[in-house]
């Protein structure tokens, strides 16, 4: 019997070796596999090449992994954020290599890897310094640049629900990089809020069929969806608990005042 559910998050990431290429899902906070990243921090692998849209926030998760000197190279589209000080420091001090890729080319290269396309032509970035010296070609009078597929050894993905066969559903815009990354890694590890019975997921609504998934690890409900039902007024946009709560009638809080918002300057 197929059972991709692993007992613990430690076990899920145990075999990621030094020097591995690791895709990490998420766009900003949404879809970030927070528990898997924390487990990777504990696990100790270093010299990693990380493929992720952003380069971490604050002092946790991917930012912490960078702070600890475990990331040798970042392949991403938007490392600059208000609270990405650990990436900034490592980059400025030359402790970390950066490959900057426009977001659409990044995800299409990931999708190509998963779909067995070794390279494709794209219009994005033609004539910019990101593709200086790159191979270009005209089709129907427009210029395009040839870009290669982007593979990884491991993908760390945040799903919402999954079954033991590895069928995964996501929640809202947290879907973002999950489905393409799940196809592009040799080993795909998905954390989910809940593991459900086989047959409980609508077969018409499975963005990541089990064929792409190697391991599923349940991490419990998100703070804002206890028991699988969304509850407002509990967290801010970064998923952090509101300190003072909110009066739902007034709809105001001072909990996040003065904090770096993490919501600006991302492009």
């Amino acid at each position, binding site marked *: 019997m197929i059972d991709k559910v692993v007992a613990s998050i430690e076990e899920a990431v145990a075999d990621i070796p030094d020097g591995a290429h690791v895709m990490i899902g998420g766009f*900003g*906070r949404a879809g970030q596999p927070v528990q898997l990243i924390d487990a990777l921090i504990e696990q100790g692998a270093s010299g990693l090449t990380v493929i992720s849209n952003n380069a971490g926030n604050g002092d946790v998760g991917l930012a912490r992994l960078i702070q600890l000197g475990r990331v040798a190279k970042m392949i991403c589209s938007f490392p600059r954020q208000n609270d990405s000080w650990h990436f900034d420091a490592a980059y400025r001090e030359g402790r970390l290599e950066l490959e900057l890729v426009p977001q659409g080319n990044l995800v299409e290269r990931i999708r190509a890897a998963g779909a067995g396309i070794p390279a494709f032509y794209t219009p994005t970035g033609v004539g910019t310094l990101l593709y200086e010296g790159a191979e270009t070609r005209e089709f129907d009078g427009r210029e395009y640049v040839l870009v290669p597929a982007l593979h990884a050894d491991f993908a760390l993905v945040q799903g919402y629900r999954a079954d033991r066969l590895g069928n995964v559903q996501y929640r809202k815009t947290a879907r973002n990089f999950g489905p393409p990354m799940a196809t592009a890694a040799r080993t795909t590890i998905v954390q989910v809020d809940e593991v459900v019975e086989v047959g409980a997921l609508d077969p018409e609504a499975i963005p990541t069929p089990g064929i792409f998934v190697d391991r599923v690890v349940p991490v419990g409900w998100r703070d*804002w969806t206890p028991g699988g039902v969304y509850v407002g007024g509990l967290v801010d946009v970064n998923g952090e608990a509101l300190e003072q709560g909110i009066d739902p009638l007034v709809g105001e809080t001072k909990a996040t005042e003065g904090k770096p918002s993490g919501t600006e300057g991302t492009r």
Partner: protein
Amino acid sequence: MATRISRGEVAARLAADIPDGAYVNLGIGAPTLVADHVPPDREIILHTENGMLRMGPAPDPAHVDPDIINAGKQATTELPGSSYFHQAESFGMMRGGHLDYCVLGGFEVSATGDLANWSTGEPGSIPAVGGAMDLARGAKQVYVMMDLLTKDGRPKLVQRCDYPLTSKGTVARVYTDYGVFAVTPEGFAVLDTYGDTTIAELEIMLGIALIDGRNP
């Protein structure tokens, strides 16, 4: 003295030019203001490149859902008729020419429609591009919304961009606090001015020749 309008007024001016039924991506920052000025008789479908169509307005703080964010990583909402999809599908929509309009901020726009909006090229700055190059190349109509001048008075409409390019020759129009400009094969054409601003005044501000493209 040329007449200057507020950012909200620029947003309203731009929103008035977007037709009913259009699919639109609003870049982060000032362009998001356009959503607040869509005329009430028009239905505009907003695309956010992190994976959603028919994005709604910002939620009140008591209804923030961290799983529903926009490209600026701010909380947003879904509406009846919204749909979610992954990043490859979302950027396929852009690259494949399915978006009718995108509205981007800009550092510079050249007379040939080049856009610079992702890097000032300053040494030591952290480079970051996100989806800007995809949007600037992918949408059917690329509109830029920006101030006409920098804070220290330099023109942002230029003959040739000094900053690193985001895209080459893809900008159709520029909506600014001093006027609306179209990129034409002959250079910038002025589509609209405010108050009693003359084209001659704008030419002096910018230091380049302009075409009169206003409706008579």
